[in-house]
């Protein structure tokens, strides 16, 4: 048997060699950038090219209604999108996991994965073709005589919501399906044998079993929605008011990196807070949910 203690020095050297690339990547590309962002966000301009430490960028966020309204709106819409995704995805996952057998099951699961492999840009573009004033849905409604003139479906909150739910679907369907598959059919049968009906079996057997997947699915969907940029911009247009857009504006358009960094730190904090809360509520470990 090879034991770890047998050849101490070469193993230590080997460990160091494996550790170095990881640490370099982690520190230089993940941790330091975030700390730099935090550092910059705490600097306020006192004179041209002269900065001092202070909280003015954060104070600016709380005193300017546009900023915190956008922030709140992004958070609320992300929560609604997460709930909608869960409600739409659950029956599909159940259908794939429990009502289908053999070939059809694998096929439908692959069908769910396909849109995810396609670039987000292409998917959103598809929705634009469908929903714009001269788009397919509008033309179809005119053709069947539902409306007189063309209708613009783009640039409303409902459209943004549609796009968000669409691009999050996979992250809910996949964990739900695999968890529901692991639910033994005999539990459901037992539920019925003991006098339960469809509703009570659903709430007392299926939902408790799926709870870990529901929570991890919701965490991932919420995170991705909050950080989404393309969908709100392209489907919502000028009225989208999404927080990542504010960050982009501060950095690239206004070149106010201090303010932009403060926004970045805020977004990252709320995102981490939600993940942490979700994990606490479900008593799951971060490593397990993420992999």
């Amino acid at each position, binding site marked *: 048997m*090879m034991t770890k203690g047998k050849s101490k020095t070469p193993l230590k050297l080997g460990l160091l060699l*494996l550790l170095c690339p990881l640490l370099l*990547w982690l520190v230089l590309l993940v941790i330091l950038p975030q700390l730099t962002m935090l550092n910059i966000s705490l600097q306020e301009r006192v004179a041209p090219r002269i900065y001092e430490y202070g909280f003015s960028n954060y104070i600016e966020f709380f005193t300017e209604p546009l900023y915190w309204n956008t922030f709140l709106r992004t958070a609320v819409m992300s929560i609604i999108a997460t709930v909608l995704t869960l409600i739409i995805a659950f029956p599909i996952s159940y259908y794939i996991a429990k009502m289908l057998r053999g070939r059809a099951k694998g096929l439908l699961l692959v069908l769910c994965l396909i849109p995810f*492999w396609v670039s987000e840009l292409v998917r959103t573009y*598809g929705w634009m*073709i469908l929903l714009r004033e001269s788009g397919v849905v509008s033309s179809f409604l005119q053709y069947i005589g539902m409306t007189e003139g063309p209708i613009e479906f783009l640039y409303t909150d409902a459209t943004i919501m549609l796009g968000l739910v669409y691009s999050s679907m996979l992250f809910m369907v996949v964990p739900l399906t695999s968890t529901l598959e692991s639910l033994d059919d005999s539990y459901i049968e037992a539920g019925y044998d003991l006098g339960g009906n*469809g509703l009570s079996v659903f709430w007392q057997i299926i939902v408790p079993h799926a709870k870990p997947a529901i929570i991890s699915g919701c965490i991932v969907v919420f995170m991705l929605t909050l950080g989404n940029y393309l969908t709100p911009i392209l489907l919502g247009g000028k009225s989208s008011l999404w927080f990542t857009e504010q960050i982009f504006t501060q*950095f690239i358009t206004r070149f106010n990196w201090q303010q932009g960094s403060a926004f970045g730190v805020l977004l990252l904090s709320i995102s981490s807070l939600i993940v942490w809360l979700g994990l606490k509520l479900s008593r799951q470990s971060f490593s397990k949910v993420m992999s």
Partner: protein
Amino acid sequence: MIPSIPQSTLFKSSFRLYAFIFFAFLMAPLVVVAVFAFNDSMFPSLPWHGFTWDWFFSDSEPKLGLFHDPQLYQSIATSFLVATCTTVLAVALAVNNAFLFERSTFRGKSILYMLMLLPLVIPGVILGVSILIMSSSIANYFDDVWAIDIELLRPGLTLVVIGQFAFITTICTLIVAARLRNFDLSLEEAALNLGASKLQAIRTITIPYLLPAIIGAAVISFLMSFENFNTTLMLVGSDSPLTITLYDRLREGATPVINVVSLLLMLASVVLALGNYFLTGRKSTAE
């Protein structure tokens, strides 16, 4: 609700109807993108003006086809370059990380593992922006103190590769580590008993075993890099990868040539991903 419990036909057929509507919803945007690539019109919208290949092959304005549109095909080449660099870096580090997390024991391993997962929680826009800030800070420092301008640290393809490398590595590590976890250590020991050195054993036994996961990770990494938008947008310089070019075109007002690019992109990614899915088993791809 399961086949062994009798259910009314109404219940079953309503489930089937729901599934049908759901998959129609899932496929609708992809189908229209594909269909309008062949519309003989200046706009990707109805009415239908007849079938054409012009948006692929036409060499004259106003219907300049993809293969004669230098801006588009150059950005495809740029994306290829970026994706290749990112993949090589990410997969190499992923194999290294897999050995570190699955084979060694050291203090603080679980903390390090958590930190390694961190890029999954950081939104792409933030990741891009934070790398931009840091590299610019370093570049400004060198510029101010030694008057050296380090072009590499300014927005451009190098930074795009770095930004994508930062989060794709995590995903690749998860894929490779999952396979290494299931490796039977006695195989390696047998090689050692037969006189192989540790490195020889790893090269001839372990790496071939890991190969499906390595290929899987490379495919996923290539696709993710090719299709990345959020992180790329923040770090891009004058050479734009495909997604950035497409985005600019979309905002100017799209012509069906965008559909052609999208269609090819869809076909390529679905073929790659499906191939990977069926070759390496579903487990590693679904993560």
